[in-house]
């Protein structure tokens, strides 16, 4: 996000119930489900303490979206480099996250976005346009993703509602959003590149995001909250019973 300043972020330590929960988890043999049920923020608190297992869970949650977007924007080789760099930075600077300023998701994805945008600036407008159009195409194609469910469970929660909402937007509005976010274009550049009047671009960006927000119900709630545990398979089947 423009102007987002992470330099002042301070060390984060969970408190209250979350702290007790982590304490309890530290005192018992680690299990997959116990880690998976921790929120991003609780995992990050463990990463600050150099917990590699917690780091791997965060990697599993976030590597794929970052990689996928980077692969479209920069190509696969550079996407791999970006992943390495971003996650190493996360490992080294985990203590800079400040939960009072927002969720881990917003923080880390904003850092990723800035990093990818920096890389993207070396590309021509044409290359960026093609990359963004490719992403737009991916968004409207109905693909049943056969992905690693380890990541899938998490991303389904976070992304499915947004994906559906994006698909329900008018094409031009979605395209304007995609070009701005993934192409790194300003509204003025979008207008120039696509030959749309600037006022039209502004309107499409604005209406598009407003509709997404409305479609997602609770403003900003694109998913269950991060602290919501990932439902293990048993719970879903329990509902089935």
């Amino acid at each position, binding site marked *: 996000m423009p102007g987002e300043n992470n330099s002042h972020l301070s060390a984060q330590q969970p408190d209250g119930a979350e702290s007790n929960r982590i304490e309890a988890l530290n005192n018992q043999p680690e299990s997959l489900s116990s880690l998976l049920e921790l929120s991003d923020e609780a995992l990050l608190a463990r990463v600050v303490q150099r917990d*590699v297992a917690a780091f791997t869970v965060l990697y599993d949650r976030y590597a794929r979206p970052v*990689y996928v977007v980077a692969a479209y924007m920069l190509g696969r080789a550079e996407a791999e480099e970006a992943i390495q760099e971003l996650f190493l930075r996360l490992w080294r600077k985990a203590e800079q996250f400040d939960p009072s300023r927002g969720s881990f998701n917003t923080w880390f994805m904003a850092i990723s976005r800035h990093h990818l945008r920096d890389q993207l600036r070396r590309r021509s407008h044409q290359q960026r346009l093609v990359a963004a159009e490719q992403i737009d195409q991916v*968004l409207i194609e109905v693909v049943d993703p056969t992905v690693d469910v380890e990541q899938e469970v998490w991303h389904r929660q976070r992304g499915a509602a947004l994906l559906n909402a994006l698909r329900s937007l008018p094409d031009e509005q979605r395209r304007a959003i995609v070009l701005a976010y993934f192409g790194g274009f300003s509204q003025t550049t979008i207008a120039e590149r696509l030959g749309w009047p600037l006022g039209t671009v502004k309107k499409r960006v604005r209406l598009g995001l407003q509709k997404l927000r409305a479609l997602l119900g609770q403003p900003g709630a694109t998913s269950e909250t991060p602290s919501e545990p990932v439902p293990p398979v048993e719970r879903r089947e329990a509902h089935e019973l």
Partner: protein
Amino acid sequence: MSCEQIRELIEAYALGALDAPDQALVETHLAECPACRQLLNEYAEMVNALPQAVALASPLQPPAALKDQLLQSLEPAPFRQAPVRQAQGRLRQAQEAPQDTAPPTVATAAPAPGTFQQTLPPPKSAWWRTRPLAVAAAILLIVVLLGWSVQLSAALARERALRAEFANLVDQQEIVLEVIDSNQTIRRVLLPPEKGSSNAYGKLFTRADLPHVVAMAARLLQPPAGHAYQLWVTSADQTRLAGVMNVNEQGFGLLVFDADRDGPVYDSAQITLQPLGSTTPAGSPILAWKLSDE
């Protein structure tokens, strides 16, 4: 600018699509307006989930080796040399203290006999004085790195084990969903043989076109040590152990197994609580279903 004017721009700002002058205007306003900051945070949360939506729709995957490479390149917490540095700093201060009263050139100029160098240990002996600290620091560093190496190896091993565990879970999950969530699914309800004796219940799911069978039970009590809930299925007067049902803390049990053919047909099924290793069902079942009762 007023909040109303800013809110005309805030969506584009969240997307990073404003030109520099407008961006500056928004940032100035945001610095002073908590309500607009809150609205921006809401948009930011949504906008920053866009990659997750793309990832869901895309078949692309990061290479599996990338994670291992990354884990191998993690370093331990920065080695804290502060105490050593401070000690060395104090030594240097002690060495340099006389310079405070001497001209700056004294240090590099040939010292006058009986002044600067006479009041300080010679450089060599200063080095010898600091060397034990340096050696201790080096040993400490080696110990830290060795410890880290062990921790990382353990973490990698744990990571592999977790992956294996998850892969198993995932495999099961796919089968479970495939079997239970289909219009070809046949469901059998397992209930306590004596009405009211327990509030546990279960279901057995089969499909005519698949060999996979899913059994679930809920509200089961935790089995005593050495005992387990076991599912027995009977067809053509042959009863066999389908498997042991692991029960979680909430009393929910799940068992997925393969029949010897597609579309298995059972005459009855029962869940018993008996010692592990049993070869035949014994005692009164906890839950049971019989085709003849339907």
